[in-house]
């Protein structure tokens, strides 16, 4: 170990090709090099993408439950007219926090969890490009989530909707700390999203296994990559919007100050320029999950890999020029409305490509009716309904009736639960064996699926009707003679049925952790690289750098008669923590990357960031300064050039040190 401290690695090395047998001395040494020590020390300092991915999944699920409870309380209130269970203020805080929690603290983080865990495995790599940055993105996500909930126990949760329009969110109409907590919490969360996106983009460009050219990359990678690229460009818009709002509220600037020349619509533009691409960021990776996992249960590769990959990118690109469809009713001139309305309808075309690719895969394949398949098939149905209701809201004059009614609530839940939650739960059933080494229960899984699917449709389909009957959004109660009583009661019943389904899923999850049947390496007989490792995978993922010859390495022999990919023989990288960097387009070996050891710096940087933003929220400038200094110190420690990573080349003179290299 001490040799790292005194000698930088040589500038070049010749990589040998070989094998590392399981159980051999080399394998044990590799394991020790990559293993995180157990205990709280390891927990705070690990940079292993698998740990970080699992943490993301569990934390996101905790927020899903919180958001779900918020929803159930609202549904009790709305089940009957003129209900007085909640005051208007309580209801407004609940619906705001429900939106914030689901959209920001569940929908993207859960997909980050899958991607963090799976990307290095399906790309044939040892870890993400920036392991410490990966840890940082989780810590800041956790701290931002706690920060956003900090004022809720005091009855001061944000209450102006997740969309937080100015001037309602301004100081005049909202004097409390609630909006400041929301604004600053979102800026903090934006840091997590941004560094996570940076990590995915660079990992994609650098860390793919040799031979994994662009057209051999799993669709989940396309989905997450596209989402990450979109986030890099979109998140600054909302971070800026929230920061400007905080400046208006606490410093006295005038951006949204209508009396002094500011514009309320500036908020809407900045917010929706971010929020529309965001909704694609929270569904494209999930669509990628389905595109990769559904074919396993159809016993054939995905139909139309290239069109599906292209449609993923096309959806995100078009997604940047449709944001005005959230603002059709703001008095914008008809010409602009026509353009954005047309784009909002055209964006359905790439989705059609993917939908027919999935149906074709099922039709030409041979379905295997295991639990994940049920979720993925159900997803296709819900996706289509959500997409169709979206086409209706894209029709400008009809949107002037539909917008801000429950029709949009129906649409957004069909797309968000249908395209995110259902693939996520299917994905959990699918990858649970890989994460834990055990299978979840087929029987309980089936029951859970049907209850979730039925409960979901009973809850949300009637919302289309409620919307067409004119029920507006975000009302805490309604009069008994508006014609909305029955649909609301049905929705509330469905919501509780759905919640019951969630409980069943959670029960299965916990039960299977202890008692599920033990799974082998590849219980589903799937084609991609993660199934070539043990369940769960070793800390180093792959003992050697595999060489890839197709999109489905584990099926090659059966499909083309010859196994051309090499999975147990490849470049040996075992001088400390090392990974192979390859070229961006073709995946040719390019560089031997020195990977960092476990480090506390990401944790401390996360804590310091939290202190900084807390100082701002409390307008305690001394605390903010302290946090800033802490951030600076953590960053300097983190980025100080290290010999063992090959970042500096100053071999000490022989007479200066005791130890010799």
């Amino acid at each position, binding site marked *: 170990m001490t040799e790292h401290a005194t000698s*930088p*690695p*040589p*500038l*070049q*090395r*010749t*990589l040998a*090709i070989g094998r590392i047998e399981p159980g051999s001395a080399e394998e044990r040494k590799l394991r020790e090099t990559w293993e995180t020590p157990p205990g709280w020390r390891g927990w705070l300092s690990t940079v292993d993408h698998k740990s970080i991915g699992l943490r993301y999944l569990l934390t996101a699920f905790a927020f899903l439950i919180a958001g779900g409870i918020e929803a159930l309380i609202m549904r009790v209130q709305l089940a009957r007219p003129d209900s007085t269970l909640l005051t208007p203020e309580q209801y407004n805080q609940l619906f705001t926090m429900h939106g914030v929690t689901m959209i920001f603290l569940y929908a993207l983080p859960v997909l980050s969890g899958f991607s963090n865990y799976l990307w290095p495995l399906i790309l044939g790599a040892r870890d993400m*490009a*920036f392991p410490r940055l990966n840890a940082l993105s989780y810590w800041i996500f956790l701290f931002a989530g706690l920060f956003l909930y900090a004022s809720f126990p005091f009855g001061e949760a944000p209450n102006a909707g997740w969309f937080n329009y100015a001037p309602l969110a301004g100081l005049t109409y909202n004097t409390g700390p609630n909006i400041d907590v929301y604004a600053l919490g979102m800026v903090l969360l934006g840091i997590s999203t*941004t560094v996570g*996106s*940076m*990590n995915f*983009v*660079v990992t994609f*460009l650098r860390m793919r296994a*040799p*031979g994994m050219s662009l*057209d051999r990359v799993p669709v989940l990678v396309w989905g997450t990559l596209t989402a990450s690229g979109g986030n*890099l*460009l*979109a*998140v*600054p818009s909302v*971070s*800026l919007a929230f920061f*400007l709002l905080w*400046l208006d509220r606490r*410093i006295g*600037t*005038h*951006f949204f100050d209508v009396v002094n*020349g*500011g*514009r309320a619509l*500036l908020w809407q533009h*900045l917010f929706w*320029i971010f929020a529309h691409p965001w909704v694609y960021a929270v569904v494209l990776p999930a669509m990628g999950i389905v595109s990769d996992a559904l074919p396993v249960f159809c016993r054939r590769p995905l139909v139309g890999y290239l069109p599906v990959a292209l449609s993923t990118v096309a959806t995100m690109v078009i997604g940047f020029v449709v944001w005005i469809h959230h603002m059709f009713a703001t008095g914008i001139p008809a010409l602009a409305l026509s353009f954005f309305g047309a784009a909002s309808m055209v964006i359905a075309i790439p989705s059609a490509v993917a939908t027919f690719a999935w149906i074709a895969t099922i039709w030409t394949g041979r379905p295997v009716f295991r639990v994940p398949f049920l979720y993925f098939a159900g997803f296709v149905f819900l996706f289509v309904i959500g997409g169709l209701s979206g086409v209706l809201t894209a029709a400008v004059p009809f949107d002037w009736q539909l917008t801000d009614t429950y029709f949009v609530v129906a649409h957004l839940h069909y797309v968000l639960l249908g395209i995110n939650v259902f693939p996520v739960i299917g994905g959990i059933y699918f990858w649970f064996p890989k994460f834990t080494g055990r299978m979840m229960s087929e029987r309980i899984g089936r029951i859970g699926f049907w209850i979730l699917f039925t409960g979901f449709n009973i809850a949300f389909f009637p919302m289309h009707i409620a919307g067409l009957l004119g029920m507006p959004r975000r009302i805490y109660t309604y009069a008994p003679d508006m014609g909305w009583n029955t649909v609301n009661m049905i929705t509330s019943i469905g919501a509780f049925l759905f919640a019951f389904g969630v409980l069943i899923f959670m029960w299965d999850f916990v039960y299977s952790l202890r008692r599920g049947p033990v799974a082998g390496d590849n219980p589903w007989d799937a084609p991609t690289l993660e199934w070539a490792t043990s369940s769960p995978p070793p800390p180093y993922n792959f003992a050697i750098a595999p*060489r890839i*010859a*197709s999109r489905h390495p584990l099926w090659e022999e059966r499909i083309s008669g010859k196994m*051309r990919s*090499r999975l147990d023989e490849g470049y040996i990288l075992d001088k400390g923590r090392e990974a192979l960097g390859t070229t961006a387009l*073709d995946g040719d*070996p390019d*560089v*031997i*990357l*020195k990977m960092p050891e476990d480090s506390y710096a990401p944790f401390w940087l996360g804590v310091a960031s939290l202190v900084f933003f807390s100082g701002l929220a409390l307008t305690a400038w001394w605390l903010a300064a302290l946090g800033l200094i802490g951030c600076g110190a953590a960053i*300097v420690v983190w*980025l100080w*050039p290290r010999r063992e*990573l*090959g*970042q*500096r*080349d*100053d071999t000490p003179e022989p007479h200066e040190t005791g130890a010799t290299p």
Partner: protein
Amino acid sequence: MSDFAEALPERARLPIGSPGERSGGWWGCLTLVATEAALFGYLIFSYLYLASQTTQHWPPEGMPKLGLGIANTCILLSSSVFVWASERFVRRGKRGMGVLMLAIALALGAIFVGIQLKEWADHPYGLTTHLYGSLYFTITGFHMMHVLVGLVVLAFLLLWTALGYFDRARSAALTIGGLYWHFVDVVWLFIFATLYLSPYVLAK
């Protein structure tokens, strides 16, 4: 491509760590540049949107004075040249010159900050005086933050170069830090064009 897997050379001689130009950190910094560029883009969008919608006289205190701004722009851009030069010297083994170039770049950057602070003090309005003030000081303030971070980066690069960390083979930190500094300079051009020049153009 499909035959490539078998065609991999039996022994590949590859560089180790971050010796080349395209280190992982360089790509990471590039993504940082992309996201920060987007941020400044949205700031500029906010300015242009509010300026196009305003009913007040714009800018309220009259057209921006260009002299000091143009001079400051030149100072900042020239500092980039010195950062670039420093990297080339270090990669040729001339560490001393590399340090000197960084020191000059650092000084020029500090002068930029000083001049900008003077410009700020000379304005009869502040951040909260009116909408224009809020926009002007927020946009230049965001840029100033990036410059200050850049100065800290340059200072550390100078320290590390002086300590002999970098040479012909290993100088990734200089390339990465340089990339960040170049970004800060280029983005200033856009800010300068928006805040200082566009009022003249849009007044027509």
